[in-house]
């Protein structure tokens, strides 16, 4: 028994049909072709599937697709404005804050949510905010630096 869901993703109205027990992550990836959010665990422990739901940072693996009905979803695919990367995206490239890159979309979405709420975070705030985004490659050092560089740039803007 399938359900039709009408929702907004990155500002676009979209409809899809899904099973009632399907996660938002599976719907984004499988139904809408938005594979930027990754499944690293499926249990909310790694943050690779981070998106925002009505502006609130969530793991899309812990949201049912049907719950998106009438809501607003934002994913990594919506971060850049046309050809212009978001300051966080540019900072991650400039500061080599990614190695394999699988955690990067989730971290970018999470960091964006942080800077919208806390434009001038301490390193400790960045680290605790991102504690739910596992990265196995970098040791987080360059990630924290990149977030701070983007934050500084966004404060100047």
């Amino acid at each position, binding site marked *: *028994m399938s*359900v039709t869901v009408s929702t907004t993703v990155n500002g676009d109205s979209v409809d899809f049909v899904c*099973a*009632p*027990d399907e*996660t938002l992550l599976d719907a984004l990836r499988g139904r809408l072709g938005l594979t930027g959010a990754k499944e690293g665990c*499926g*249990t*909310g*422990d790694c*943050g690779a599937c*981070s998106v925002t*739901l009505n502006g*609130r*940072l*969530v*793991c899309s*693996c*812990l*949201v*049912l697709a*049907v*719950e998106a009905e009438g809501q607003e979803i934002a994913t990594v695919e919506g971060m850049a404005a046309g050809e212009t990367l978001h300051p966080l995206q540019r900072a991650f490239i400039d500061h080599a804050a990614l190695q394999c890159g699988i955690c990067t979309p989730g971290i970018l979405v*999470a960091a964006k*949510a*942080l800077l919208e709420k806390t434009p001038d975070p301490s390193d400790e705030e960045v680290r*605790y*905010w*991102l*504690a*739910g*985004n596992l990265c196995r490659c970098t040791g987080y050092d360059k990630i924290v630096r990149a977030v701070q560089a983007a934050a500084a740039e966004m404060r100047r803007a």
Partner: protein
Amino acid sequence: MRYEKPQTVAEAARLLSAEKGVARILAGGTDMLVQMKSGMVEPDLLVDIKALPGTRTIVKEAGGFRIGAGVSGAQLSEDADLKAAWPGVVEAANLIGSTQVQGRCTMVGNLCNASPAADSVPALVAAGAKVRVAGRGAGRDVAVEEIPAGPGKTKLKKGEFITSVFLPARGARCADAYLRFIPRTEMDIAVASAAVNLSLDEKGVIKDARVALGAVAPTVVLCEPAAKAIIGTRLDDAALEKLAAACSAAAKPIDDKRGSVEYRKDVVGVLAKRAARIAYTRAGGQK
């Protein structure tokens, strides 16, 4: 599986009691979806309660706070009045999972998931919080500690569900605090935890206290001997040692992958001491 999002409590109750198969409530989903993924639970009906009136709001009531069953941890942290009145409860709820999980998880879900290690539960118990239980009949208010029956089990009857939790009004010189121990700094399940809620008289002597412990028994432990150990004191070292000893004695933990019996008994006392100091300072007591 059917997914329903009823608009009224009555409809939700009707759906739940009419279901012949496995029915579950969906609030934040941060435990439910994990259990569904692992195959631990395969519901036939999932009732999303987030559209029910009052489930998404924090409302002042009788000087206290009525918190809807769908209110997320992140929402709690953004309510300045609530944080000022019940800092221990809010910090406990904010320890559940990651920032992402905070965007969804609820205290009522934390309670009804019935894990002995639930972070918000000891804080709610120490606070003397009550939950409102809805069902086919009239609603009833129940003390939080009356809900858990054992790991993964609650005392709610078929068709019953919780719509809100109520935190009472605060007087002067009252405060609470919650601490848990985890191996990392974040993202773990509590190995042991302690919540302390106390009130002081004008001289800084503890008038009243409630101490609740998590992850050291099948359900949350409301530890009266621990409270007695500090009532009537200014939280001097002797009182703190007695408090720790009472907590360690009340702990009846298990050995598992997260900690040993011995370790949990030790650490729960340490946490209680530290939480008591924080609560005491917050309440205006001088050390």
